[in-house]
């Protein structure tokens, strides 16, 4: 599903590579935690998968796409099959919950009909049925992240990329979000999640990939957060 082959990423403005000769594979339906200290290259790895950045060398594959070599005009097609959520939710403050979810469908050219059926489905999936007309400012952090997840899933992506999705949430709310992500993963969506949250990683006992200064430091099939340090 996802594959990195000897990927190195050197940002033009820095001397140390953000990713240094990283190779890894993620199968369809896996749940992968991406951990490592700040600056170790977690976000960079996710950005390469989304083709927000191109690798300095090496290859990146997502499903059948050779991501690094993809023509610019094909990038939207790739991104439509990849959902992503972030620490800061990135909702549009001037649109309701339902409109935020509909937005992802609208700007990828889905029909009115599709939008009318998919939006309620997504709201139900993330447990926000009654709050479709709320504005983002009227939501708790956990609710906002649920809306972001609903939006990320609206186009039925193959992979969900999450960059510290619980970074702004209290432990209890984080657990709820993790339950949701686990449920989504069990329904078949591959999930890659970058996190600093030791508790979550230890509780879930899923695959753990650790980066250290841009290098792959560890890859455990059912890992915990602090094993190697």
């Amino acid at each position, binding site marked *: 599903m996802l594959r990195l082959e000897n990927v190195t990423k050197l940002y033009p403005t820095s001397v140390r590579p953000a990713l240094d000769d990283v190779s890894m594979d993620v199968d369809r339906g896996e749940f992968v935690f991406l951990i490592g200290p700040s600056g170790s290259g977690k976000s960079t790895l996710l950005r390469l998968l989304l083709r927000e950045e191109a690798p300095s060398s090496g290859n990146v594959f997502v499903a059948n796409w050779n991501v690094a070599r993809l023509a610019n005009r094909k990038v939207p097609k790739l991104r439509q099959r990849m959902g992503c959520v972030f620490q800061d939710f990135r909702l549009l403050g001037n649109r309701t919950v339902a409109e935020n979810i509909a*937005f992802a469908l609208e700007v990828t050219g889905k029909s009115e009909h599709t939008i009318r059926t998919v939006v309620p489905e997504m709201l139900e999936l993330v447990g926000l049925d009654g709050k479709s007309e709320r504005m983002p400012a009227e939501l708790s952090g956990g609710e906002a992240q649920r809306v972001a997840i609903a939006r990320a899933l609206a186009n039925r992506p193959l992979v969900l990329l999450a960059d510290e999705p619980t970074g702004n949430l209290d432990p209890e709310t984080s657990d709820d979000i993790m339950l949701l992500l686990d449920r989504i993963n069990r329904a078949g969506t591959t999930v890659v999640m970058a996190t600093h949250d030791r508790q979550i990683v230890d509780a879930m006992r899923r695959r753990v990939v650790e980066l250290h200064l841009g290098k792959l430091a560890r890859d455990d099939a059912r890992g915990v957060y602090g094993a190697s340090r």
Partner: protein
Amino acid sequence: MNGLGFVWREALAGLRRNVTMSVAMVLTTAISLGLLGAGLLAVRTIDRTQDLYYSQLAVQVALDEPTSAGDANCSSPTCTGLREQLQGDPLVSAVSYESRDQAYQRFLRIYAGQSILQLVRPQSLPATLRVTPKDPTRGDALVAEYTGKPGVRNVVDQRALVQDLFTFLASVRNAAFGLASIQALAALLLISNTIQVSAFTRRTEVGIMRLVGATRWYTQVPFLIEAVITGVVGAVLATGGLVLGKLFFIDRLLSGRLISNAIPAVGMSDVLLFVAPLLVVVGAAIATATGYVTLRLYVRN
């Protein structure tokens, strides 16, 4: 198509979001296009006037009294000699003879019913050799060559007589085009700036669009439509301005006794059928090009 609806809504929202700037942008565009239109009307008037005159304009070689008197078909030796010399001249393409009698008849036709007729008798009109120069702009050479020849009273280049008029019209045209291009530059910069501001205002939205896989149609075309709307609305306002200008300025100016015979009127159809479509096309094209370049240079897609 749903995409079309989205793009339109976003473009209109963009224009509404910063009304002050949108109005400035539209007005500047309108003034620029209005000046361009005025220049085009001047060009059209010049062409018309030239068509009207140039076919009839000739170098008139007027013959003196002895040569003019009683010669119905240029049979006197002086006249024949002059005519042959003119026909052999490399600058000349055709020569025709108008006798004093024919001149008088023409005079009677042109000024039929006017009091000037009572003052003119056949004897006061010269016979003329009407010379069509090969190159209408070289009439001066003919004037220089044939003035003072035996049998010649004077030589007049009719084109030189109306040249002042054309010079005036041409300067109107140049001034209009000059101002139009300065104003167009202002319009370009304003459109470009507005798009940059608009893109900055919507950066979160566009960022999310890119993330969920929206194509450039969704991320960029709204900005282009904003620009196109500006261009088209500007062109419509400019056309309105030209119509008012025609009704309240040009029509009055050209209705003066002297000028009305010399310059053909600017028709409403010139404004609406010739200039207006051009302004719409030029306005839309320039705005689109500006928008496209701005997006390329300043806005990540």
